[in-house]
């Protein structure tokens, strides 16, 4: 249990701040934007398995080495492979300057990002997040306050939490919906799936 706590801490403080760079790397080498989040999850899974056995000396280069392997595996499994892509990816040198700028996002910028993320949410979702986060209201209290069911509040919270996390960690912060209407957007290259 102690191991898991320290692993979580390492993951949140060393790996998650690099998510913007990781996402850029993934979207650069993987043409299907809808799958970027799956690849990210795959990378994190492997990173945690590896770090569970022993922490790497340098988290950044380790993360990108894992990402490169995941991408290479996927590219090799893909039906149509661009040779250039593999060659290019093999050369991915994780330069030091990839790591520095995002590492210590200053406080002011991060706060602006929180506000920006909240503002991008649909109105009802935004209200739910505000009531929860600013007021510390529970699901039931938010529901009573807004005059909606607790199911709706839970649904909006989950949507908002996922979108905000994506946004705060450097992704798009779009709401994911599973309704067929959104398919077209996904086909056109949206990140929803």
């Amino acid at each position, binding site marked *: 249990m102690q191991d898991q706590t320290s692993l979580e801490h390492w993951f949140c403080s060393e790996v998650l701040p690099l998510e913007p760079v990781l996402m850029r790397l993934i979207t650069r080498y993987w043409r299907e934007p809808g799958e970027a989040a799956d690849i990210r999850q795959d990378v994190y899974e492997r990173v945690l398995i590896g770090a569970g056995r022993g922490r790497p000396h340098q988290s950044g280069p380790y993360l990108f080495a894992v990402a490169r392997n995941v991408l290479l595996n996927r590219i090799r499994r893909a039906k149509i492979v661009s040779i250039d892509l593999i060659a290019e990816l093999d050369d991915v040198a994780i330069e030091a300057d990839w790591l520095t700028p995002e590492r210590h996002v200053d406080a002011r910028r991060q706060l602006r990002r929180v506000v920006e993320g909240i503002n991008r949410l649909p109105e009802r979702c935004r209200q739910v997040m505000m009531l929860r986060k600013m007021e510390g209201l529970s699901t039931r209290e938010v529901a009573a306050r807004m005059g909606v069911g607790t199911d709706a509040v839970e649904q909006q919270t989950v949507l908002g939490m996922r979108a905000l*996390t994506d946004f*705060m960690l450097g992704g798009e912060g779009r709401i994911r919906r599973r309704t067929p209407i959104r398919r077209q957007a996904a086909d056109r290259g949206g990140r929803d*799936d």
Partner: protein
Amino acid sequence: MTERDRIEQAAAHWVMRRSEPDWSASDDEALAAWLEESVAARAAFWRLSHGYSLIDRLSAVPGRPAAPSPRHRLRVLAGIVATACALAACAVLLLPLPQQPVATHYRTAIGKIDHVVLADGTVLDLDSDTRIRVLQDDSTRHLWLDRGRIFVAVAKDRARPFITHSGGADIVDIGTEFAVAREQAHVSVSVVEGKVRLSSALYAKSGSTIVAAGEVARTDGRTTTVEMGESKGIDDELAWRRGAVIFRDTRLIDAAAYLNRYNRDKLEIAGDIADLRIGGSFRLDNVAGFSRLLAKAYALEVRQGAGTIKISRQ
């Protein structure tokens, strides 16, 4: 829905439920078992709870400007953006905290009135059936009134504003003594000494109201009304601190609801006498005396049941 999507959805549910007030030890075990299932589950859960905690920074807002900054394009959201501008000034102080500090919870049982002294010297009276959370660090002092009623005598500290959150209302202390009561969607603030600034957390555009000594403000988050200069009103509002209540031309049904907050035997008032007006000063814990009075003075029938006292016409 991909496997990753399914895991993330489940992880988000866990993160959300973990912050609910009814989260229990058995929930904790269930979560641990779920996390044990796969590394992917842990990755998703840790990532989302980290992301979700980043948003907590929004809650540390020490008051917000009445007028939103006109430069911003998003009109509807201007209030929040204005909040951010106010925040930016103190962001440097608030943000580098490595971990989210944990709030201290206080609660009182039905019929109990508690006296609490906080770390900063602020003195609180907690009314019966009240729940609060307190969070204090080097730069801020926050108190959330989740349920019930409190009286606050704030210890002076210019560097750390004392902010009380309740319902949709934010009460920023400028002076010293005030009481806050929360009843469903309404919050009322009675100021005994000094001043407080009352603003809405949700409707930033509605600006803020200064409530001065002797005033009682009521708000539902959208609209706020202030009753002026009725010191008798304040005395009435604060009678609970002495274990008493003063009714003045109060509907019987409201008086019963009030006393029911303090007693396990609940008064049940028949519909046809709900609007009967009563007055007087009563002990909060003496519901038996209250019902005897109703029997004597109003010739009503009082029937004691298991956990209930039924009041009706004879």
